[in-house]
């Protein structure tokens, strides 16, 4: 019951917002924040209950599911309203609520139709949490598709630049992907012994065990559907456009939550329901992951637009998840413990990416709100007028490049260590990705924060650019001077030189108020996970172990 309240509270609030037009815009924005906060508080309560029970209970996926509700819905095909949480879904539900609260706080000053904006996001929250909590394929599919609809309107209605086109591209691409997913679901239904859409039953008694060809085709359909959403190479080209033109809060939700619907589908549906096919094709999954890792990293390196760059790093980070999940299917090559560690790492990566990329997108929103552009070459030296912004961006960037002390390290360390035994060559190739991401984030920091302060005037920026910020070539960092040749500028001279250089700085206001409250907690959470991962891992590890043994059947 509690879980259903958590799922539907936001959409009920959205309905209220639309039903009472007398409510002022400001009140609507605050109502959104309050509802998001209540939802988060309920989830924290659920977490506490789950964590105290999980020591005794079985680990999840097929049994030991908490807060379970099952109500008959379409009995002819055995589809039901079946929801529940376990170690795989709970962390994602929690991080979803955190991100939606951050988005709500971020959007407190939204000027453009704030009531509909709030209603739309609340609707999206229900769709997202519903997808993670769903234990029935049809229910999953319904929530999954509703999230696409919601995000379409967010981008088309509140985006900038070429928003209509990007929104349409996003919608059609991911919708077509979801159709492939639906075909896969029907295949699972037809292949199942009892003709059911129930995810728990399907995972407990996997369909199509005796027909490898059919199982392979069903897996292919499901993987294509999820790969579009995740996104994986070569299905990722909707992502940079959608991100670039989405509003900051929309980008944060898109990257932080909606991409996870794809990766979550792999762990919830593909792996436990088609273990045979997963093992047979695991190497392909690993290769798809590694290609995405490198492709995302290299293309991100070449971008000249901050937001596009971060969008491409998502492809890179999602690639690591697929590497870990694929490695978990290579049963012959690796032992149980290593595969479970790889899955744990992949799960932590989902949570970590949500926090870090969510905060990165919110922070790039600061750039757009101040200067109306994301182009690297229009900005410079922002550490001077905006030290807090610089610090937050620095922490988020270092987190995203996998620095220990933040959550991404916990994720990537486990993915690499868990995958090496199963797929040594692929893992070693994938590891190089963290150097490229390190390079691109440091170059980005350097371009934005150091050097002469440069702030574009939003009035002069073409607000509705006809083309997106396509890459125009790599702007490499200032070439390191020939070492040992030129004397470094003298220590004390530099400080005076800097004092003389009085560039206009009044135009860039530092991070403040709602911006601070929305972004800093995300980073603090990431640091807490990075320093003290046990509370999160205690929830994930049993489920990850259960999953890797289910996938290893």
């Amino acid at each position, binding site marked *: 019951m509690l879980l259903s309240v958590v799922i539907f509270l936001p959409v009920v609030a959205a309905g209220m917002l639309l039903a009472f037009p007398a409510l002022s815009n400001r009140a609507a924005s605050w109502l959104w924040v309050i509802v998001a906060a209540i939802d988060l508080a309920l989830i924290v309560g659920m977490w506490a209950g789950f964590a105290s029970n999980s020591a005794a209970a079985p680990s999840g996926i097929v049994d030991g599911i908490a807060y379970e509700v099952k109500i008959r819905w379409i009995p002819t095909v055995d589809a039901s309203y079946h929801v529940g949480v376990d170690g795989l879904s709970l962390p994602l539900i929690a991080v979803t609520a955190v991100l939606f609260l951050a988005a709500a706080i971020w959007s407190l000053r939204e000027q453009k139709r704030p009531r509909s904006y709030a209603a739309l996001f609340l609707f999206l929250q229900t769709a997202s949490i519903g997808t993670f909590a769903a234990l029935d394929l049809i229910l999953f599919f319904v929530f999954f598709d509703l999230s696409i609809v919601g995000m379409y309107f967010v981008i088309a209605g509140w985006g900038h630049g070429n928003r209509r086109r990007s929104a349409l591209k996003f919608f059609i691409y991911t919708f077509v992907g979801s159709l492939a997913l639906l075909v896969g679901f029907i295949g699972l239904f037809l292949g199942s012994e009892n003709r059911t859409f129930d995810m728990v039953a399907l995972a407990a008694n996997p369909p199509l065990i005796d027909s490898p060809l059919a199982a392979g085709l069903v897996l292919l359909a499901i993987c294509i559907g999820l790969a579009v959403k995740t996104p994986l190479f070569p299905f990722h080209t909707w992502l940079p456009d959608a991100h670039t033109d989405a509003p900051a809060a929309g980008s944060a939700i898109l990257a932080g939550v909606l991409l996870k619907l794809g990766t979550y589908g792999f762990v919830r549906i593909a792996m436990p329901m088609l273990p045979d096919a997963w093992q047979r094709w695991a190497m392909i999954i690993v290769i798809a992951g590694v290609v995405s890792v490198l492709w995302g990293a290299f293309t991100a390196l070449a971008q000249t637009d901050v937001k596009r760059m971060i969008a491409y790093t998502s492809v890179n980070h999602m690639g690591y998840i697929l590497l870990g999940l694929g490695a978990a299917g290579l049963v012959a090559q690796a032992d149980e413990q290593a595969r*479970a560690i790889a899955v744990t790492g992949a799960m932590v990566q989902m949570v970590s990416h949500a926090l870090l990329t969510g905060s990165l997108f919110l922070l790039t929103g600061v750039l757009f709100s101040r200067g109306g552009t994301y182009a690297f070459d229009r900005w410079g030296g922002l550490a001077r007028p905006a030290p807090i912004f610089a610090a937050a961006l620095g922490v988020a960037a270092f987190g995203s490049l996998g620095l220990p002390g933040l959550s991404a390290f916990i994720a990537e*360390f486990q993915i690499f260590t868990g995958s090496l*035994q199963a797929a040594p060559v692929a893992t070693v190739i994938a590891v190089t990705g963290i150097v490229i991401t390190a390079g691109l984030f440091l170059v980005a920091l350097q371009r934005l924060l150091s050097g002469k302060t440069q702030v574009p005037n939003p009035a002069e920026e073409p607000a509705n650019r006809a083309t997106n910020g396509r890459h125009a070539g790599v702007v490499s960092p200032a070439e390191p001077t020939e070492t040992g040749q030129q004397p470094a500028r003298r220590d004390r001279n530099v*400080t005076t030189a800097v004092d003389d250089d009085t560039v206009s700085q009044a135009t860039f206001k530092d991070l403040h108020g709602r911006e601070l409250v929305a972004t800093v907690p995300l980073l603090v959470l990431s640091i807490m996970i990075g320093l003290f991962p046990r509370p999160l891992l205690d929830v994930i590890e049993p489920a990850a172990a259960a999953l890797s043994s289910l996938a290893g059947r």
Partner: protein
Amino acid sequence: MTAVQAALLVMVALPAAAGAVLTLTRTHRVAAPIAVATAGLTTALAFASALARPAVSYPFVAGADFALQVDALAALTVPMIAAVTLLVLVFAARSIRQSRSRFHGLMLIFSAAALTTATAASLPALLFAWEVMGATSYALIGFWWRDSARVSAGLTAFLTTRTADLGLYVAAGAALAGGAGMGLADLPAAADPWRHVATAGIVVAALGKAAQLPFSFWLSAAMKGPSPVSALLHSAAMVAMGAYLLLRVEPLLASTGWAGPATAWIGVLTAVLMGVVALGQRELKQLLAASTIAQLGFVVLAAGVGTVSGGATHLVAHAFVKALLFLTAGAWLSALGTEKIAELRGAARPWPIVGVTATVAALALAGIAPLSLWATKDAVLTAALESSGWLYAAGLAAAALSAAYAGKILWVVWRRGPRTKVRANDAGRISAVEQAPLVVLGVGAAVLGVLALPPLSGVLADALGGHAAISVAGLTVSAGIAALVLLLMLRLRAPEPRWALRWLGLEAAAHAVVVRPCLALARALARFDDHVLDRAVMALAAAVPVLARAAAGADDDGLDRGVEAVAGRVRRLGQVARVPQTGAVHQYFLQTVAVFTAGGVIWSVYAVMG
């Protein structure tokens, strides 16, 4: 948790926490006192844990604890790191005048990371501290971030060392796969071939951090950071930690058979080549940077030939020598406004304490008896001789080179004659607070050699593993060579070939071989992404309307026309059917007769044929 375990935890957590607070707040007035007090407390705790040898561990990720332990090797190194941090921070309290809070905060975080690295007993703990150390070094080298070139230098340092760090990630995976667990001490028990993979990974990571060949160039760029940063990071802690890691995993190196000789040769080759590079430098800090790498080459050599005690004593003594020299370079740089060696003529004279301590350090660096590095270096060389004569010979050549580059500085700073003007303003003063740490470091640089001489050498060799024996002949030979070369440098001009001045062209090579191809690949892939992949998707999407128009056309011109054609036929048939219906009865009779006649004919034909 016992009190000593708590001491160990506080030793790493206190500077980390204080550093984080200082970095994130702006408390410029109290930053330096807080930092010095924290470092002082940390130093006390470091000595306490060195005596008590505690170990702590807490669960971190599955199958790998976060384990810290002060064993004999750490007991020797940890107090050194803490003490040098304290002394450098005392010096920096006055010499850093901008963004004090950020500077001291980052230095404290760095020292916490270095202390964790030194005490790490498991791979996750090591990797954790190792990478944080790299990231803080990025922030410290690029401390003056308004100057983009300095930030680039930090970037070069971080990216180069992180590339090498990939080895540690691989090593961690190999440790898990090898089934021996993530403890550093357990690695030799890992199953083959994973043991070899782990060894290779650790060696690469260590060589990268220690700036050994071929990674050396990053340390040259790193000299763009403030001098106190170089004094801590590039003498006692970060670079030294690379060599330290090799000492720590010496049993693993020895267990593989190939790793020992390989590291020994890389170490000695680095010592020789970087000695030449150091001799060829024209700037003091560049010379010191190259010499640091060369001296750490001896430590790497020590790890390769299995004398942990020799390597560790050399590491500790060198930290004092080099920290002192970097601080001196910083003091001269700010007082005289130059770091060109030629322009430092007579620099030792206006400030006698600075001059004398620097001289002690330079003589120690040269290997003059009875100063510290003379004895410690020889402890390493003695062990090298046992495994190979060639290693020993190369080591001796490297020792001679150290005497040469030490002489290059020493004679200039004492030479009389016209000299660079001392700056008139406040910058031209070197205060007592700045001079006091130099004296302490100078004492260390002079006397720490006792660690490598009997009776202490025996105690250390028992505790750490290594060679207790000291050959008097070897000591005499190296002392003689050092003195001879040092005197020769009075007369000779140091060769400054272009390739040495440019650090063997290593950075240019890295740019040509790695950086530029990567950037080109990135551009190519991005172009492919935009122009091929995205276009293909859009073309596919664009094909839909085309198909739709075709379908609509087929609908209009095919199906619909067909239906209408059928309708037309039917209409025509209807018209034809209307023709006989005239309304005249006689015509209907006629038609009936015709039909019956035809029917009768057909029936009779059928009957006849039938």
